[in-house]
């Protein structure tokens, strides 16, 4: 946690409500996101109990499993979820634009927009991943040999959910988002990070209802109960409130189990639907309230670019599904794992740089940690590079209150608003205190972004009195060298997939894994 974030939390405690942790919104928000609030059954790992799902806040679709231990009903639930989700995905698959050819790529089709899925919290996101993992290999009624066929669209749902959940691991991605993560990125509350996972409490801090302050609203959301003992603000899932499970849900399930006639069963099922709906509805409303709060923030300048990468990811998966490729493998092979990790590390560096460039608060955190500095130019000394064609290398003397931590000769990058790329520079000499304890003087040599002539391009060199910001991190980090093909996996990593050198998995596959 940065010093600045600690300060923001302390301020939130003192003020009794959340304080902004960002001046812009760092995530793309779709106009019509698909909100998904799943609930699971206590005592049965991963068994769904119900969900509210939809793109229309006024008309969510309620899916309920009246008896969570019944396998048929469970897969009926997944089929229902597939119905909502796949139709929403399908809407985005055919609306394409054409991306012009570049040096490394031919002209390509790119989906104009991608479906954005928002779930309440990190646990719900993990549940989406679990559903994807447990359904993408299932065999359907189309397969005559399947011993326990599931409804046809379920494995396809699993593949999409797996793709979304895997993409969510890429820093800065926006295909699948947990609302509590989004809100805590943009506001700092006075409660612990653990409590911030409670959507109701988090919203209480950010936007307390009239007459309450943050702590009171959060306490009410966490522990306030109605006279019959149920929580005023039911947990945002996927786990349910034990009091609800014991006092209300269990008798209703028992009634369903006891029902012997169709009308009895229908009545019992309607009862359970109402109960599960009553637990989901407050969270559903909270979800949209949270999205409204985020929408009120202006979008950061680089958000669009990151969303475009999500659209590429979406389009790529669409193409793999259409090409009839098999589901994602159970485990990544050595090359795929290394590729994913490298891609995510680049994405993390890019996200951190772009957030700093978009948001003065994010830049302030980097300045405080010595990774950037802002100061005033006091002197510009023109020098030129040696060589056949001398290039301008102006040396700026800057006074700053910041304390950049870098050796002389280290690369620096000038942050320019609206610029496509950073202006390269390097630190010339160590920072010197102008006055003890006061601002420091720094010398920085500009090395690029001044055109190709002997005189720098108009406006590319700051003048004395200008305020400039330099970062010690790259603004657009490149990805590393290409990895070998899977068939070229070296002997140190067990050779190509399927060869003898691969040691047995620590968690061997059993027949149950394919159920």
């Amino acid at each position, binding site marked *: 946690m940065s*010093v600045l974030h600690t300060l923001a939390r302390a301020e939130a405690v003192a003020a009794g409500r959340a304080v902004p942790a960002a001046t812009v919104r760092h995530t793309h928000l779709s106009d019509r996101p698909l909100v998904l609030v799943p609930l699971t059954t206590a005592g049965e790992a991963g068994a769904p109990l119900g969900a509210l799902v939809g793109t229309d806040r006024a008309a969510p679709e309620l899916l309920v499993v009246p008896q969570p231990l019944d396998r048929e009903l469970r897969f009926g639930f997944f089929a229902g979820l597939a119905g909502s989700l796949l139709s929403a995905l399908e809407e985005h698959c055919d609306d394409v634009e054409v991306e012009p050819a570049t040096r490394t790529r031919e002209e390509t089709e790119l989906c104009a927009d991608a479906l954005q899925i928002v779930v309440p919290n990190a646990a719900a996101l993990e549940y989406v991943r679990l559903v994807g993992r447990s359904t993408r290999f299932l065999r359907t009624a189309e397969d005559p040999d399947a011993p326990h066929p599931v409804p046809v669209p379920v494995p396809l749902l699993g593949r999409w959910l797996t793709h979304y959940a895997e993409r969510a*691991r890429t*820093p800065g991605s926006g295909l699948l988002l947990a609302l509590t993560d989004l809100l805590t990125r943009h506001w700092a509350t006075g409660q612990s990070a653990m409590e911030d996972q409670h959507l109701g409490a988090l919203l209480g801090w950010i936007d307390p209802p009239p007459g309450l302050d943050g702590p009171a609203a959060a306490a009410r959301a966490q522990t306030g109960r109605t006279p019959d003992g149920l929580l005023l603000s039911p947990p945002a899932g996927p786990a349910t409130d034990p009091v609800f499970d014991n006092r209300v849900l269990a008798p209703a399930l028992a009634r369903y189990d006891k029902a012997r006639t169709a009308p009895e069963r229908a009545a019992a099922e309607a009862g359970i639907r109402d109960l599960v709906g009553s637990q989901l509805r407050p969270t559903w409303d909270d979800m949209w309230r949270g999205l409204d709060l985020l929408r009120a923030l202006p979008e950061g300048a680089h958000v669009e670019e990151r969303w475009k990468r999500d659209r590429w990811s979406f389009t790529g998966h669409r193409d793999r599904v259409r090409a009839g490729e098999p589901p994602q493998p159970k*485990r*990544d*092979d*050595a*090359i795929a*794992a*290394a590729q*994913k*990790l*490298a891609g*995510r*590390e680049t*994405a*993390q*560096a890019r996200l951190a740089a772009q957030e700093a460039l978009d948001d003065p608060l994010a830049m302030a955190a980097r300045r405080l*940690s*010595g990774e950037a500095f802002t100061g005033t130019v006091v002197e510009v000394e023109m020098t030129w590079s040696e060589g056949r064609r001398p290039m301008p290398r102006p040396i700026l003397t800057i006074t700053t209150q910041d*304390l950049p*931590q870098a050796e002389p000769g280290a690369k620096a990058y000038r942050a320019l608003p609206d610029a496509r790329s950073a202006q390269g520079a390097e630190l010339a000499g160590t920072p010197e205190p102008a006055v003890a304890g006061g601002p420091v003087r720094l010398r920085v040599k500009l090395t690029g972004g001044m055109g190709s002539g002997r005189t720098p391009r108009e406006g590319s060199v700051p003048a004395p009195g200008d305020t400039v910001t330099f970062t010690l991190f790259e603004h657009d980090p490149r990805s*590393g*060298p*290409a*990895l*070998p093909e899977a068939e*070229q*996996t*070296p*002997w*140190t*990593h*067990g*050779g190509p997939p399927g060869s003898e*050198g*691969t*040691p047995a*998995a*620590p*968690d061997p596959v059993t027949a149950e894994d394919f159920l």
Partner: protein
Amino acid sequence: MTQPVRGPGTDTDGGPYDPREPQPPQASDPPHASPVPHEPFDPGRAAAEATSAILRSTLHGTARGVVVDSPPGAGKSTLVVRAARELAAAGESLMIVAQTNAQVDDLADRLATADPELPVGRLHGTDSPPDPALDRHRSLAKSTSVAELRDRAVVIATAAKWAYVKDTEPWRHAIVDEAYQMRSDALLQVAGLFERALFVGDPGQLDPFSVVGADQWAGLSWDPSASAVVTLLAHNPGLPQHRLPVSWRLPASAAPLVSRAFYPYTPFRSGTGPGDRRLGFGVRGDGGGLDRALDEAAESGWGLLELPARHTPRTDPEAVRAVALLVRRLLDRGGLTYSAPDPDPAPLTAERIAVGTAHRDQAAAVRAALSTLGVAGVAVDTANRLQGREFDVTVVLHPLSGRPDATAFHLETGRLCVLTSRHRHACLVVCRAGVADLLDEHPSSEPVRLGVTVKFPDGWEANHSVLAHLAEHRTVWRP
């Protein structure tokens, strides 16, 4: 820190090795108890035997890989240079992979100094020209293109640079230096370039890490965020594993503690005996806490300067000042280092002192404090950057000093191991009181995953054993 459970490969010791039955650390063990009773331990001979066994495996063995574990200051670089020269002399083409440009420059320099006739190629990136100091070697060629260096007997570069080398005939041999600090995915990128390799590294130092989560691959034998050696051994369990048994850097006062706390299954000894390395002062102490801590360190090799318990920000101003004052007093009192057999002391200069911290901002704060005290030339850096370096005296700001919590970062065994194993004479630790209680309140709670190499010892235990030892050399000080 990665201490792989050793496979059935040959061990230099030749002795049975059973990871399930660790020898309980015996505080009462005399520091020079010999593994074979009635036979005095000869460090020179033990080291020479280990080295020749390694060279035998490398030059004449049949395995594709040879792994060498080296404790701090055990002559790893010397071994690499020697193995490189012998491989080159045998007419084998050799590439060397190191992790940082500084390490590559250092190795290239050593190699060219040891054998001025050996044609060495230094492959480097366009943005990172090699150290100009290498220009004095006639036989050393530098280039950004591997094609220009293909005729060289030895080509040396960082793993990051090697990863860009494609479509070339593989080298017959490779030496991978600091292999425990190399990530598995970095090895994946370069392993296609060589047929066989010697992997050398220190399993006790900081593990490689990733800035993004890699939990989803935990337990896979090719987890890209794991150490290269862990992956290598998981896929090639029969590879010969050797270790260097003697630390020439650590004095007799430090080797037993570092060995016991950080290398419980692969113990090592100091190459020097008690009294061979001494620290003295030209000026008597003034009786203050700082000087008493210095005298204790001169006497015993360890000194703990304990400040009153308090929760502080990371850059605890009092602790930072205490570190700076200790360095100032070390210099003011005319520190003298004695190294047997040389009877004459060498003056302890600023260049021979290092300050180690856990975080970069702490290092920056110490640098600022030192400059206000008029001290220049002392290396002040984080554990990550001090890895592989050696000094006469180190002053360490304890990673847990003043903290309200003990995170996995601060408990990482390798961090403390690096900080407490850089010195040839003495190590001073500055710490707030109460770290032992803090440790007791934060037992390690990392999830246990199937298939993941168990890390021994865990940071919690190693921290406790170091603290318990330091407590015997404690000076309580109020700023």
